[in-house]
Structures are given as structure tokens and as C-alpha cells.
């Protein structure tokens, strides 16, 4: 009866590991099933919008915030945008490319969605975008940041959120010219978003006349950032630029402070956005970052978003809420410009001409469907007992090619190939 490790036990462990691996991306769900809700009656009829965001898995919080932003905007308009009653069908992309494509198919073929709004993970966006193009259903991306998603002129894909490099190119220039930090160490995540967000900063920073002296990349979901923080050349660098959204950012900042690194830190805005800032708290104090949104923007449009979102979700508004909300505004204005039926053709043409005053400021699209908007240089400060990203500087109308111009920018090699070459 003594039961030292038997074969069954070993096979049990293997089964357990497989189960864990299979369930790694499946975790808690709050709202899984598509919602059937009563659609408000519009004078011009009904438009079906598929909301395709992750409601389970590691990005569940982001997807839920985007959906809340979109639905709150819709609610503020009584469910009617430009005369169309909007029927929302929510599906869960689950941060799984297979599930994402299946759900996109389902939205188009079963729910008859006339437009799809959403996508958080770039890998899924790459899988879903060509399908929607072929199916003739316009796609409005709300988070997925891969640079390559908006590189086709007059395409079917529009994006209200950022390309991974767009929001940090101005920060590169700002760090060199305004802050005067001449030598930077880069500490980022080792996957496409990390490379693009590091590369955008490095390119603008070096072209402004400063030098990247070190690049350190850590795998996604690194538990202990100690080994990486310890490698920073503290005696040589003037500043550390970091890219680490979500819990990686929390762990990175903690390790940075715990190991007593005193160098000033600049960051991609997602590293210290409002989803992680309450937890980062004083470890983020003084961090300068750039992003297209901060709840600190003073405008009537932003006040409306902040009030509605804070009341509904009991937490601070953030870039994802703004992405969803702005997607709603964009759709509304596109619909208002359409004469006749909202066919895919008409929707695309109307989307390309949209120019709205959203909570983040003016938003329009370039010829590639990528949003052009203001970038805010922000600083983490304590205010009223909480932590906020207050605005230090505003750079108006930044497009995905920054000051390089599209022709020149498109001849640059991809950031995946430039990773590791910035530091001389």
C-alpha cells in the first residue's frame, strides 16, 4: 500500500501539466455568452455591430474596459447613433487566434454583423483582418497595436488605438531634446509589441542626437525583474526607457525601486496607465511617459467619459475606455455622412473621412486607416490621495510615421530586425 511515485502518479502529473497548459489562456470568465439586448429603434433602421474583445484570459480586463467604453457611449446616446438603432453582439476572442477567427466568422455569418469593433491581441488581429476584408465587413481596431496592421492604403481596416511605435516616437525626441538625457538604456519585453515600442523610441531618440547604450529584453510574464534591472549600466546611462504593460510593469517598477536604481525613468504610456497605476503607486512616482490619453485631459468630451466610466466600473477611466468610447463616436459620425444604405462600401468611405472631437482630442484617419491624434507627455504624480498621469506637454496631430513622412518611413526595415542594433 505504500505509494511511492507510481507510474500512474507520473502520468497524472503529465496530464496535469497538459491540463494547465491547455487552460493557461482559459481562465475566469465573467460574461461569456453573447448578449441579446433590446435594440433601440432608429429612424433609419438598425445596424448590427460585433464587439470582439477578450472577456477571458490575460487580457480580459482590457477587453471589458473597451466594451464598457463603447457601450457607455452608446447608452449616452440612448442606443441610437445618427438615426440608427445599434444592435450590439458581444463575442469573446479569448486571446486565442483560433477562437478569435471562429468568433469573427460567427459574428459575420450568424449574427450578420455589419461592422466589427475590437481586438486586443495583434496575433488575432492579423488572423481576423484578412477574413473581414474578404467578407466585406469593415473592422475598427480598438487596442491591437502591431505596426503592420495599418500599412495598406484604402483598406478595410481602421484603428482608433495606437500603432506600437506611434505614441513613443515623440517621447524619444522629448527625452533627448527637452529632458536632455543623452544616454539611454532600454528595458523592454521580448515580443513584437516590445520591439516596436522600443524601436520607435530609439529611432526618434537617436535621430534627435542622443545615443542608446544598452538594450535589455525580458520574456512576457517575467515573474522576477531583478536579474534584468541589475544589468542596467547605472554608471553610464542617464535615463532608462521601459516598455512593460500590465503586471510586467508592476513587477518591473517594484524591482527598479527595490534595487535602488536612481536613474530617471521614461516609459511607454501603457507601462503606467490607469489599469496598473493604482497598484504601482509610489513605485511609479515621477515616471515620464507618452500616450494618446490620460483621464487628466480637460474637456467636456473627456468629462463625459470619465464620469460615465467611473460610475459604471468603479475605477479610473483609461486608454482602453477611451478607445471604446472613441470607436462609438467614430461610428456615429461615419453613419451621419452616409447617404443611402450603410453598406460596407459606404461605411468604409465614410470612416476614412471621419474627424471627431473625442475625449483624447481631435481624431481622424490617415490614408492607411490609422488614427491621427494628440500625444500627451505625462508625469506620474500624487493627487487627492491617488496617483495620476498629469499632462506635461501636448504634441498635436501625431501620425504613425511621426515626422519622417510615409514614404521614407515605409522604407525602414521592420523593428523585429532592428532589435539589438540600437545600442552601439
Amino acid at each position: 500500500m505504500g505509494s511511492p511515485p507510481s507510474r500512474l502518479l507520473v502520468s497524472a502529473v503529465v496530464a496535469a501539466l497538459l491540463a494547465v497548459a491547455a487552460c493557461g489562456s482559459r481562465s475566469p470568465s465573467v460574461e461569456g455568452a453573447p448578449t441579446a439586448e433590446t435594440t433601440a429603434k432608429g429612424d433609419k433602421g438598425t445596424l448590427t455591430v460585433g464587439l470582439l474583445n477578450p472577456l477571458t484570459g490575460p487580457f480580459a480586463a482590457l477587453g471589458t474596459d473597451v466594451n464598457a467604453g463603447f457601450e457607455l457611449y452608446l447608452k449616452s446616446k440612448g442606443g441610437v447613433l445618427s438615426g440608427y438603432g445599434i444592435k450590439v453582439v458581444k463575442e469573446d476572442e479569448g486571446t486565442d487566434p483560433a477562437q478569435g477567427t471562429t468568433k469573427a466568422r460567427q459574428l459575420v455569418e450568424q449574427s450578420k454583423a455589419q461592422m466589427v469593433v475590437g481586438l486586443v491581441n495583434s496575433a488575432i488581429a492579423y488572423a481576423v483582418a484578412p477574413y473581414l476584408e474578404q467578407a466585406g465587413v469593415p473592422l475598427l481596431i480598438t487596442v491591437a497595436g502591431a505596426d503592420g496592421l495599418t500599412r495598406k492604403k484604402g483598406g478595410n481596416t481602421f484603428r482608433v488605438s495606437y500603432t506600437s511605435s506611434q505614441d513613443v516616437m515623440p517621447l524619444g525626441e522629448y527625452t533627448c531634446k527637452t529632458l536632455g538625457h543623452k544616454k539611454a538604456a532600454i528595458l523592454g519585453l521580448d515580443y513584437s509589441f516590445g520591439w516596436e515600442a522600443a524601436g520607435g523610441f530609439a529611432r526618434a531618440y537617436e535621430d534627435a542626437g542622443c545615443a542608446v547604450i544598452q538594450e535589455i529584453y525580458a520574456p512576457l510574464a517575467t515573474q522576477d525583474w531583478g536579474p534584468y534591472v541589475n544589468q542596467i549600466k547605472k554608471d553610464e546611462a542617464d535615463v532608462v526607457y521601459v516598455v512593460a504593460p500590465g503586471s510586467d510593469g508592476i513587477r518591473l517598477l517594484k524591482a527598479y525601486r527595490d534595487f535602488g536604481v536612481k536613474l530617471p525613468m521614461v516609459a511607454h504610456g501603457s507601462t503606467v496607465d490607469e489599469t496598473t497605476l493604482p497598484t504601482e503607486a509610489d513605485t511609479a512616482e515621477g515616471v515620464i511617459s507618452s500616450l494618446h490619453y490620460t483621464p487628466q485631459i480637460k474637456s467636456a468630451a473627456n468629462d463625459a467619459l470619465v464620469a460615465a466610466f467611473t460610475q459604471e466600473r468603479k475605477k479610473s477611466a483609461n486608454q482602453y475606455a477611451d478607445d471604446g468610447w472613441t470607436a462609438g463616436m467614430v461610428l456615429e459620425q461615419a453613419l451621419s455622412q452616409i447617404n443611402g444604405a450603410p453598406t460596407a462600401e459606404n461605411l468604409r468611405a465614410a470612416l476614412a473621412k471621419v474627424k471627431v472631437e473625442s475625449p483624447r482630442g481631435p481624431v481622424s484617419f490617415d490614408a492607411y486607416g490609422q488614427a491621427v491624434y494628440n500625444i500627451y507627455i505625462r508625469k506620474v504624480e500624487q493627487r487627492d490621495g491617488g496617483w495620476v498621469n498629469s499632462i506635461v506637454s501636448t504634441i498635436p496631430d501625431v501620425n504613425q510615421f511621426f515626422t519622417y513622412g510615409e514614404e521614407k518611413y515605409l522604407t525602414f526595415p521592420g523593428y523585429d530586425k532592428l532589435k539589438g542594433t540600437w545600442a552601439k
Partner: protein
Amino acid sequence: MSWLTHTLNGLAYGSLLFLVASGLTITFGLMRTVNLAHGAFYLLGGYLAYDLASRGTDYWLAMVIGVVGAAVAGMAAQRLLLHRLTGQELPQIVLTLGVALVIGDQILAHYGGDPISPPTPPGLTGPVELGALVFPKFRLVLIGIALGLALLVSALLRYTPIGAKVRAAVDDQEMARSVGIRVPLIFLLVFGLGTGLAAFAGVWGGAFTSLSPDSGFEVLLLALVVVVVGGLGSIPGAYVAALAVGLVEEFGRVLFPGWAMFTLYASVALVLALRPQGLLGKAAPR
């Protein structure tokens, strides 16, 4: 000096892994209950302590309530569910996985999916500076706590009457029953101890690495690695394995950054190829 820092940090990370694995080596390694809910109890402890502390409860009280709360939940799961499946590994896998998902769902529903971080124990924030060496206080203390815990738990199992009863109950249930040992009670208490340790690791590990509703599975995987490499049921084995894993992770990340994901699992495969029973495990009698 940087080598000393890296070594210390590897030991600190290993110590954290030991905190997580110590509970699992008791429930899974010793009691032979395949416990995939271990990561969930880790989360439960961490979230409870975080919740209380953020409402202004004293840190140490919050920690104790978190640990005891999770231990009670663990005992309830053992008594009501697992207890019926003694010795049936596959049903245990499915059941504990279910428990883990239910707990994860509840955490997501109550606290949302944004990552949280239980506070660092008061007085242990920031670095300690010894000449050129700058090292976080909390991590130094963690090394000491893990060593103390390893000694305490292995002494408990090896030298106390309770420990003798536990070993008897695990090794031969029928014989243990026949000499008057209350096996179900012993198992209940041992499971409570295991989940309590998981919760303690959650409170302190959360302060180290932050928590989110799906981080339970990441932690479970590392704990399984430590328990299997150390040898099932061996506390000293788990301790040695945890430190080794911590050091391999640390130096792997510094010396071969491109292979960061690979170094750990490669060394695990190597250890198990040479010693299938784990570093300090008993060889299986044929």
C-alpha cells in the same frame, strides 16, 4: 559585486518558489493528492490579505486572516470533495482543476482582472545598502524565512508525534487506522497546513511578483517543477530544488537572455533524466 547580487537574488527568488512549493510538496508529494487548486489557494490568500489591508486593516492581522481563511477553504474542499477520491489521481485532477477555475472566476468577479499587489510587509520596503551592494530588504528577509520554514516543517514531520502519525497515515492507511490513528482527521489537518502555506506564499509572493486572476496557474507550474525535481514529499528536497531553480533562472537570464524560457525546463529535464525520483526523493521500490 554584481555576481554577489545575482547570486543573492537567485536565492531570494528560489526562496519564494520554496514558499509556494512547500505547501504543494505536503498535499501532493506527501499526501499523494494531485492538487491543481494549489495556485488558486495561493491567489485566495493573497487577494484576501490585499483586500483587508487596502481597507485599512493592520498588515499582520490581514496576513493572518488571509492565511487562515484560505486554509479553512482548503479544508472545506478536502472534507466535502477530495476526501471521496482518495487514491484516484485522474478524478482528483479534474476536481481540483474545477476548484481552481471556480476560485479564479470568483476572484475575477469580485476584484476585476487588473493586476494587484499585496503590500510589502511594513519596514521591509526599499533596499539595504552594504557598501557597494544594494539589495532589497524584503528579498533578504525572504531568504531567511524560507530557510526557517524548511527547518520547521521538516522537523515537524520528522521529530514530532503528529509528524509520525502523518507519515504513518500516508504510508499505510489501513495499518494506521488499525492502531487508532484518525486518518481522515490527520489528512484534513495536513491539507489545511498545505493550503495555509500556499496562502502565505500568496501574501508574500504577491508582494514580490503581483497577482492577477490567472497568475495561479503560472505559480502552480513552477511549484510542480520544484516538487518533482526535489523528490515527492521531501521538504529538504523541495528546498534544495527551489534554490537551484532560482539560481538557474537568475543566471540563465543574465548569461543567456535569448534562452530565458528554455534554461529552466532544460535543467529540469536533465535532473529527471539522471535522477527520476528527484534530487532527494526515495527511489521507488519495485
